[in-house]
């Protein structure tokens, strides 16, 4: 065997390793989740009960699925005006200027802040501020968690749409200007329709990020195991319940937490694949 063939084989087997890694992850999660699904069946997904009392253990993932969706959608809605304005600032109004470069750098740095630091800031600064303006209880809850999540996903939502917006051909915009359109009219009738699918993909990927964020959410959501009844009530997400309850878990409880991890893995996988598919269709 000559050396070129060896090199090619090494490269090929390493990429097989990546595939095996993904398959192994799925295999292990499914394996770990089997006891929970055996015990509760599909009701595991649709049951709202989480009772760790020994002898009458009952686990259902619904409170956490609902909590995850509520915080992530909340975060998406809260981040939308901010991140979309920022994309317009960077990709349209001030494209290529020094101000835009600095703003872009700062937005990127938002992505570099560790989740736990966001959590601390949310706990010690945001939460007291919310109590101050008349937020009920101790300031914990889905809304608080969604608010900090919104800040955390801004860089992900911004970077892709900003890139796409700045790629809209100048000819198209100039044509609209020459017809007497104002800048706003160019944005609403040329830029946004042209960049639409890229913008959507960016928000889908940001949503995927929000689904799995753990530490900051754990510190702010209030950690209650019932199905959340209001946007301002407390709850738990799939990620936060794993972080919270893993320490004292074994047996059926551990298996239930792994099952929640499996569901989270599948949901984020689907969301990410959807986002990537849209991007691919655009090219």
């Amino acid at each position, binding site marked *: 065997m000559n050396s*070129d063939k*060896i*090199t*090619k084989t*090494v*490269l*090929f087997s*390493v*990429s097989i390793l*990546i*595939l095996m*890694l*993904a398959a192994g*992850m799925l295999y292990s*999660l499914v*394996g*770990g989740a089997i006891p929970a699904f055996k015990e509760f069946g599909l009701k595991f997904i649709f049951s709202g009960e989480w009772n760790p009392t020994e002898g009458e253990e009952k686990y259902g993932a619904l409170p956490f699925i609902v909590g995850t969706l509520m915080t992530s959608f909340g975060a998406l809605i809260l981040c939308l005006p*901010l991140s979309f*304005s*920022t994309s*317009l*600032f960077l990709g349209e109004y001030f494209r290529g200027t020094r101000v835009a470069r600095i*703003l872009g750098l*700062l*937005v*990127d*740095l*938002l992505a*570099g*802040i*560790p989740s*736990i*630091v*966001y959590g601390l*800031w949310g706990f010690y*600064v945001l939460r007291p501020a919310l109590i101050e303006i008349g937020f009920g209880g101790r300031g914990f809850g889905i809304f608080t968690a969604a608010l900090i999540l919104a*800040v955390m996903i801004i860089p992900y939502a911004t970077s892709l749409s900003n890139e796409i917006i700045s790629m809209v051909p100048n000819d198209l915009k100039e044509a609209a200007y020459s017809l007497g359109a*104002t800048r*706003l*009219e160019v*944005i609403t009738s040329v830029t946004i329709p042209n960049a639409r699918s890229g913008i959507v993909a960016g928000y889908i*990927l940001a949503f995927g990020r929000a689904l*799995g964020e753990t*530490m900051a959410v754990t510190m702010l959501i209030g950690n209650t195991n019932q199905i959340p009844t209001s946007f301002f009530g407390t709850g738990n997400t799939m*990620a936060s319940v*794993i*972080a919270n309850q*893993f*320490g004292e878990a074994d047996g059926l409880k551990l298996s239930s*937490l*792994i099952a929640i*991890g499996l569901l*989270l*893995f599948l949901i*984020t*996988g689907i*969301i*990410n*694949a959807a986002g*990537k598919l849209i991007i691919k269709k655009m090219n």
Partner: protein
Amino acid sequence: MKSTFAWKDHTSRRLLKDKAVLVGVVVLSLITISPIVLIISKLVVEGYQQISLDFLIENTPDTFEAMTAVANGENIPGGIANGIVGTLLMVVLASAIAIPIGVLTGIYLYENQGKFMANLTRNISDILQGVPSIVLGLISYLWVVKHITNGFSALAGSVSLAIMMLPMIVRSTEETLKMIPQTLKEAALALGVPYHKVILKVLVPTGFSGLSTGILLGISRILGETAPLLLTALGSSIINLDITQPTSAVPLLIWEFYNDPNMIGLIWSSSLLLMAIVLILNIVSKQIAGKRN
């Protein structure tokens, strides 16, 4: 006359709307970046007093020592050396696992553009990048904690961090190599250089700055990770260099301090240190990337 006025009115309304939206965009953009300023200033204001040499070279105090110090109005003694060493140990180990695999996979993807296996690997790697870090913690718990080290360990922490880093390195390697002119590679091949030497002596050195940008960004992302370490490395109150034993890390210590009312004084200084390192890595990697372009 009348119609001209109506036209003017309409136009000025359009222009007004245009201006109003511009103002709105600028204001909202400034609000967007305000958290980074607020967070960093909070960390600096609350944290700088605790930062000293002792803070870097001593282990964490126990709750009682901290409580006494706070009661006497002193700074909390001790530091976070166990966390700093643990973080370094796990990041180095994670890099040692992820960098070779990631770079080689990136080269494979670059060499096999458009082929089925390469597309599959690229898609899977992209999807792995979106897997939440807590799930990676579960995986490493199932693989390493339960079957290899039979207990919480630095190795388990490193494995979860390595899986997190891997897709970023794969992607940045492929993107970097794509930008290297084909002619360079062809020139080497025309001279009869074996394939592995083309990779080691042409591709990797030429793309070095791009590769290091990807690696530094990957490291800066795993440095602050807490969730997977809760499930794998667990934490330790002393410096530990044995990769089969529970180990601390700076973010893990922040989590411990957060849960212990006596240690609150140490939260901000530890976070400040962590943030400083992460931001410096971020900026350095951006600088390298900027120079290249």
